[in-house]
């Protein structure tokens, strides 16, 4: 019996290794209703339910409540999550997931197209669902991402994808959601990253902002025109901004640039989101007055100047939260995205309310990206996109993601790295 059991274990292990070393297989649609019982549910909207019941069917949440919920779940598959935590799937805005596989290998980089003004360039068609990196990100609870092109003044259009799909068409959550504008720097930098030179005021700042203004004026005129003599792919791409179907994401860190960008967008009747926004804490009144959304970059970065408060980057989220600004977290890059939840955790250590941090990772991120009607919080009728963690998902000391669901589909939280760990642990175990 024991021998038989051992053989079974061995076969299963071999199978799992083989399966896992290849890519993870996208999950099939939810077949039967599921109910998760007993967990602490962080709904993503600021509410917490202890000893909760969360049920979903056909990809949508059907019930959210505590044990008092008088409902019959007998036909549901039950998951006992007592002592565990449930969160909406985390959302990673402004990432290069699926665009960059190995940073130093040019052939695997698809995030920067040549050119200066390229609103017509679209990230979605380059998004690789087969990236070996993506499963490692999912394993830490990030289930949705906005995939953003880089470079130039206008770098192109992003799309929002969920991180479990056969191909990019399947992955689309919201296509071409935003156009990305890199606001001119108020400062000019000489040198390059390895050999930095000096920083001084950018003499071309006004010239550069005027270029943007001119481009927007012409794009808007094109949008209004009923008699377009020539088709212009750039302006065609821009029309979404003027008809409200797309958002303008302006990447900048400086207070003054953020203000210019907001005023410019308002003038043209364009929805704007600020990305980066390192100095947003300096202009909270302005941002509040203009109801501007903010995607913060890299809590784990160094203060930009020697004299700055050494903890400023850690404190900024709580300052924005206290000022009532809607913000979410983001990081640059692809593989790094698995650390996104910890950036929020670090901000909690510096005064950000815990549920507010969860909200920023989930429903506020959804709101900022314009997908909050269907996802971002554990509310009846919304997508069953959620994670079950052994402990606090924002603290690496306790975080262990057990299960993850995207629209009710139970996805594989295994990844290449876990498989390699198993493979070599087995090797050592066998040697003994």
């Amino acid at each position, binding site marked *: 019996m024991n021998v038989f059991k051992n053989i079974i274990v061995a076969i299963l292990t071999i199978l799992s290794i083989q399966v896992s070393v290849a890519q993870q297989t996208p999950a099939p649609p939810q077949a039967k209703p599921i109910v998760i019982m007993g967990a602490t549910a962080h709904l993503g909207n600021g509410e917490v339910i202890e000893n909760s019941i969360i049920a979903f069917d056909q990809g949508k949440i059907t019930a959210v409540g505590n044990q008092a919920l008088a409902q019959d779940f007998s036909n549901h598959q039950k998951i006992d999550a007592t002592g565990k935590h449930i969160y909406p799937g985390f959302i990673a805005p402004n990432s290069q997931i699926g665009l960059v*596989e*190995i*940073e*130093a*290998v040019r052939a695997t980089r698809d995030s920067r197209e040549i050119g200066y003004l390229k609103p017509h360039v679209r990230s979605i068609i380059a998004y690789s669902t087969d990236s070996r*990196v993506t499963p490692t990100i999912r394993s830490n609870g990030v289930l949705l991402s906005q995939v953003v092109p880089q470079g130039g003044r206008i770098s192109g259009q992003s799309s929002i994808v969920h991180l479990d799909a056969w191909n990019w068409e399947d992955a689309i959550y919201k296509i071409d959601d935003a156009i990305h504008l890199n606001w001119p720097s*108020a*400062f000019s*930098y000489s*040198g390059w990253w*390895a*050999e*930095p*030179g*000096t*920083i*001084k*005021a950018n003499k071309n700042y006004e010239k550069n902002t005027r270029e943007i203004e001119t481009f927007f004026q012409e794009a808007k005129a094109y949008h209004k025109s009923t008699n377009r003599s020539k088709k212009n792919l750039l302006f065609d791409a821009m029309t979404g901004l003027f008809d409200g179907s797309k958002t303008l994401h302006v990447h900048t860190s*400086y*207070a*003054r640039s953020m203000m210019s960008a907001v005023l410019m967008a308002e003038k043209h009747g364009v929805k704007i989101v600020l990305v980066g926004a390192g100095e947003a804490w300096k202009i909270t009144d302005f941002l509040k007055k203009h109801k501007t959304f903010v995607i913060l970059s890299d809590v*784990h*970065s*160094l*203060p930009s*100047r*020697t*004299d700055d*408060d*050494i*903890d400023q980057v850690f404190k900024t989220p709580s300052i924005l939260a206290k000022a009532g600004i809607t913000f979410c977290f983001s990081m640059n890059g*692809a*593989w790094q995205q*698995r*650390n996104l939840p*910890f950036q929020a*955790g*670090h901000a*909690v*250590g*510096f005064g950000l309310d815990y549920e507010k941090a969860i909200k920023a990772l989930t429903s506020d991120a959804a709101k900022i990206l314009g997908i909050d009607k269907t996802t971002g919080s554990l509310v009846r009728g919304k997508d069953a996109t959620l994670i079950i963690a052994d402990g606090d998902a*924002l*603290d*690496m*000391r*306790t*975080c*262990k993601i057990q299960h993850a669901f995207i629209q009710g589909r139970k996805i594989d939280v295994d990844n290449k*790295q*876990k498989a*390699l*760990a198993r493979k*070599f*642990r087995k090797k*050592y175990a066998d*040697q003994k």
Partner: protein
Amino acid sequence: MQKKFYALIYFLGFALLSTTLLAQETFPRNGVYDQRDGLYAFTNATIYQTYQDKIEKATLLIRDGKVVSVGKSVSIPKEAVIIDLSGKFIYPSFIEAYTELGLPKAEKKKSAGFRENMVSTKDGAYLWNEALRPEFRAYELFKSDSKAFETYRKVGFGSFMSHRIDGISRGTGMVGLLGDERAHLLLLKKEAAHVLSFKKGSSVQTYPTSLMGGIALLRQTYYDAKWYKDHGHKMETNLSLDAWNRVQSMPQIFDVRDQLEVFRAAKIGKEFGIKYIFKGNGDEYKRIDDIKATGSAFLIPVNFPDAYDVEDPYAAALISLSDMKHWELAPTNPAKLEAAGIEFAFTSDGLKKKSELLGKIRKAIKYGLSEKTALKALTHTPAKLLGIADHVGSLTTGKLANFIVCSAPIFDEKSTILHNWVRGKAHVLKALQEKDLRGVYRLTVGKNQYTLNVKGSMEKPTMMIELNDSTEIKVKYSLIDDLISLSYNLTGEKNDVVSLSGAVEQSGWGGNATLADGTWVTWKTGFTRALAEKEDKKEDKNADKDAAEDLKLGTVSYPFMAFGWTDMPKAETILIKNTTVWTNEKDGILQDTDVLLEGGKIKKIGKNLAAGSAKVIDGKDRHLTAGIIDEHSHIAISRGVNECSQAVTAEVSISDVVNSEDINIYRQLAGGVTASQLLHGSCNPIGGQSAIIKLRWGFAPEKMKFEKSAGFIKFALGENVKSSRSSRNNRFPDTRMGVEQVYMDAFTRAKEYEQAKKAGKADLRKDLELEVLIEILNDQRFISCHSYVQSEINMLMHVADRMNFRVNTFTHILEGYKVADKMKEHGAGGSTFSDWWAYKYEVIDAIPQNSSIMHEQGVLTAINSDDAEMGRRLNQEAAKAVMYGGTSEEDALKFVTLNPAKLLHIDQYVGSIKVGKDADVVLWSNHPLSIYAKADMTFIDGIKFFDRTLDKKLQAEVRAERARLIQKMLTAKNKGKATQPVKVKKQHLYHCDHGEDEMNH
């Protein structure tokens, strides 16, 4: 009176027309020989015979370009030309020790682009490295340059040293006189000094690319020169080494870019018994005690920076507090040097205009420098340092007649240099003006009458038309030989200028004028009265008030930047009560425990310890751990983390370039880091030696070093060492295959070298690179090897086995989990990233379970940063081993404390909380592996280097100090003082991949 004045002009004119004052010309003459005695008597002057001997109403007698006598009762020969200098002042003329005068500039050859130049491109029997040019002799290329000389003469210089500002050894400098004669008459001393620097100059050779490479090159050259002198000259003829040995008997001047370079060079000097004279940077006051301790003399520039233009608050935000403070405190530098008793000479080097010199020195005097030392630094000290005090620097009998005549004491604001005599030959800068025009005049121009006030200094009075009590209009004028022209514009409108021209005579001034409309009228003045004393001093009073404001100064902090200490913290006796103690020892985690820190050590651990005189810190709900130790860090390094130019650079050392002025030290203290290994980068198979430091924020570099640590060295494997990012690499190795051969070759050579040493081979050349490799072979130096994939890791362990050394640590070691058993067998530890991967091809199989698996297999495992940002949250990175790999919390904490201490062989001092170990501990606000934990206090040697409460106070101080300095700069701008646009140097954050040339900026 008038007559005498004209007579003087006549004589001086004559003197200028004549050729040389010296006898016996060697050059043929086209015309009649005109030889003279050059006998002059300067009478009734106040004469500074030396910087400290002043004689009033004295006579200076010179002949043939030399001082005959000076004193109150000099007998004047009848044939002497007498120049009455009543009310005037005579000083020995100044000596400029740092110039490139009269020399052609070095031309930089076209560099070979991305290809590396391994050896010198200079043809001939010279040194292998073209940044070393000891054979260069400035005097051989010296030409007289009258235009440049004049600019120096105008500010009072009479002689100079000139060398070619090019290279690490720049060869010798010559001393010349600032006359107008041919070069052979100006060359006073052919070789006065050997000049060195840490700058490569025009060299296009790749080595060295880093400051530490430059330092190693200098060291090796001192050894090579000694070898050459004793033995090498029998084997080769090396013109550079010949020269190097020859120039060692001269003064050695070392040109540095900042105060830290003084310490670096002084350390080399000490090793070879050389006391350099430093050509400093004007920032010596920042660590004046350490500067003093070098015992060196200095050439000090006075190019105090202008205020930054901070009108735009966003631009103002860019400037660092340290730059602003330097603006404020730079003028105190000479006074600080004086107070510390450091010998120094002034140099005008670095001034935008030489004419700023005296103004800057007067400013230094306002900021506390004595006039006596100022004069000494312009005359006596440079003469002494250059070994030319027998000729210049004072006006005693037999010295050269090199002196200046001033209208007032030289450091008075209103003093003007009238004459500059070079070897007995006059250079008239301004006639000896004897008329005092000052007073109140009635000016009549055509039908109009005005009051004209002439005030200010006698030599350069200002003229103002007084319109009413509160309004004065400035009158421009020029006065040459009693002919005067004036112009003014009373309305300030366009085309409303009135121009006057005429003569100054005893009876009054007068002549013709053109009005704005072009009509001619006559004009004249009549003297009304002399100036009341008060009128003349009104401006002075305002100036005094301004000066008093200017002199309200901030303090020097250590380091000289935001968050620096104004009072250095000291070790205290501290009792941390009732806390959770992570001992990292057998006792494990102790609850509700007290820890006593005393004398920089952990004194007691236990319950209810008596406080005695200790300062008590409540540790309730907090956790106490050993300080975090970063096995792989690149913070606090100056000018280059990599010496990439050769495959083996064991001779270079990070410990030569530790930078105490890096804000990341403070930031990492706030993350609980107490010690770091500062590693060389990873661009060559055998890189440089490490520095192991404690993060003693504020201490000078030498005092940050971990005193008892063993030596370490960086090795590296993989993509970086085979230059994978370059598409045109020409440096061996280009593949992993070549990397093995680099090691085989290096250790084979090292063994042969060691054998030769042991055999007592007398003519063996000391090779610093091989010396270091021998240390590795003898277990005196340990390897930290940058590594990624298993093939190369196995390779190095095989090489080590064959060559009989051990790889102490594989760092990065991202595939360590694949070869953990082999590492264990070899005895190698692993220091890895917690979760980095996918940034380059060789990390494609990196996994976050790596540290845990190595640990499970018995490999001594650590987690490191290699990154200034990650370095401040290494506790979180350790926690990832719990999350991904299932390592226990106690072991995970050891990954960043005790284990790196063991890897660095410092675990007998640090790494755990154990009685007798160094008091390097961190008090955390929360469970130390939790993301919510903050380091509340960080202690090193019992000194509290970080305190989160104090940090708040420091932040407020930084803000207040910035605000004060910005206001002061705005005031300076409003008062019309010169400003400079905001432009700041970006800080270099190193990772191990950086390999750019840092030797020339």
